[in-house]
């Protein structure tokens, strides 16, 4: 029981990180970006490739399974994925922005297929792992209490870092000029332009943040599960469900809405796996989506006008 909850929270932190970025793009650009999942997969694989190039000679840091090499590889992947998101915008989305949100949705659907196919061509379809060595899970709660709880140090780091990243982003949106500009642009793009906010700067920042968080989420997914070219596509439905559950708009609470949504999705996937079996995992996201659309289509913290 406890273990199921913990597994759900780990998957939930991955969904949460990626959902924050997706929620931001949905609030600022007002379209559902179907290629967001592919950013996550590309981030995960970029880290793998950089890590392979620098070798795995570095000693592990403290209790974790990795050394400074993978940390550096992750930073490179973050930069690369952010560049990929910005490049995709320059190549495709920016040119279609005037044609309305649905054209952008079609384009993002096309982009996702191209990105996934290229990744599959480049890396092959066989699952890969960052590290071949097994990590020893730490016994946190003894088996006698609700089945006990075992976590690896990596898994605990994933949960902690998710919360830290969300808190940093909260600070950014609350206190910095750029962050406040982003919220203004999400609330009312025309009014934001009138008061002198440069929309292109806001757009650029949105893609950089969205791409970076997707890369981190991808690396976490690679650490806790495995790397597959379809890993992003498989997370797309949970991501959208988490975003709609949290709500979109200009309020900072939608950031925490996306985080909460991610954890809810992770936990319900965990429940679906234990009730129906692992192959029915996608059912959880669909049920959450259906319920939220029926009961509260604007999400928990979204603007009323959504």
């Amino acid at each position, binding site marked *: 029981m406890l273990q199921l909850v913990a597994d759900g929270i780990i998957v939930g932190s991955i969904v949460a990180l990626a959902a924050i970025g997706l929620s931001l793009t949905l609030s600022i650009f007002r379209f559902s970006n179907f290629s967001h999942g592919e950013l996550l997969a590309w981030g995960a694989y970029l880290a793998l490739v950089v890590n392979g190039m620098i070798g795995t000679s570095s000693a592990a840091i403290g209790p974790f399974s990795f050394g400074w090499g993978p940390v550096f590889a992750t930073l490179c992947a973050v930069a690369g994925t952010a560049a990929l998101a910005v490049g995709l915008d320059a190549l495709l989305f920016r040119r279609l922005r005037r044609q309305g*949100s649905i054209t952008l949705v079609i384009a993002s*659907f096309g982009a996702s297929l*191209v990105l996934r*196919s290229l990744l599959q061509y480049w890396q092959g379809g066989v699952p890969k792992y960052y590290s071949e060595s097994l990590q020893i899970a730490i016994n946190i709660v003894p088996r006698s209490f609700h089945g006990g709880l075992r976590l690896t140090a990596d898994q605990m780091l994933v949960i902690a870092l998710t919360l830290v990243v969300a808190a940093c982003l909260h600070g950014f949106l609350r206190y910095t000029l750029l962050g406040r500009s982003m919220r203004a642009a999400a609330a009312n793009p025309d009014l934001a332009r009138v008061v002198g906010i440069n929309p292109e700067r806001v757009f650029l920042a949105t893609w950089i943040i969205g791409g970076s968080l997707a890369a981190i989420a991808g690396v976490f997914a690679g650490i806790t599960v495995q790397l597959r070219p379809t890993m992003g596509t498989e997370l797309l439905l949970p991501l959208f469900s988490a975003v709609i559950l949290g709500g979109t708009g200009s309020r900072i609470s939608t950031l925490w809405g996306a985080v909460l949504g991610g954890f809810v999705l992770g936990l319900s996937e965990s429940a679906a796996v234990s009730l129906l079996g692992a192959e029915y995992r996608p059912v959880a996201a669909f049920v959450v989506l*259906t319920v939220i659309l029926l009961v509260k289509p604007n999400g928990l913290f979204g603007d009323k006008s959504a």
Partner: protein
Amino acid sequence: MMSVLSYATFFLVFVAIYAIIALGLNLQWGATGLFNVGVAGFVATGAYTSALLTTPQETGRVAGFNLPFAVGLLAAGLLAGLVGLFTGALTLRLRRDYLAITTFGVSVMIETVARNATPLTGGVFGVQFIPKPMQAWLGTGFEWNASYLAMSLVLLALVYWGLERLLESPWGRVLRAIREDEDAAASIGKRVYLFRLQSFAIGSMLMGLGGALYAHFVGFIAPQDFLPILTFQLWAMLIVGGSGSNRGAILGSAVVWGFWSASGALLRAAIPAAEQARAAPLQTAIIGVLIAATLLARPRGILGHLQSGGRSKHG
């Protein structure tokens, strides 16, 4: 000569089936502005429904009812229409891209069931020995293929004629009014939601019908026949042909299916056999680039009328 003719028959049956599905998509998107990202799911619903109803009984399987081909076809349309009704009722009052997300979810669900509910759907191995209608008279060779082509073309003509009539009728005019200016249509008392729901359900039925035709032509279906790439090919057909135009949807089906078959043949010829499995995704990438390039260079397609989804407060 015979082999060319035989290949042409094969090719055209697929064009006709895709055209029927693309016409359904054109009703949803071209005529009503509803974005369906789960076309593959609706097609799969039709294919599996007809396959499960018409295959002979077998021990260890839940389905297999040995029903006639016509019953399978009809049920395929009806069930896909019901799935469309459910999806539409859930989302058509909300933001426009929530429909897109939900259709995507529906297709993921249908794939999950097809892949895992093995007693019903055969799991990853799919459904085999789907009956080919009239095979007792026509045999399995060219005669059968040609007859199936004739039947598919007749069905396509019927669907085309029906849709043209429908869009010219008062019902179709209301759809056009809603697409052009939703608020104006609502202000003269047209129930926007109901019209959208009907259009979405009819489009879904056509997708189901196309799926059933595919299943009975090939005789074998499996979950990997209904992956997102199918949705994408159909969107490419509609966008290249020109959304909003029924003739564009048919033309696009021929052009894109030709392009897809040719690029497949080219990749097979140009890339050594050992590398082919690895290069297969490139074919998908090519069609992705085609759709993006069409959107950028010729957003209305070859024969299109639609101006980027019309004006709508949900935009």
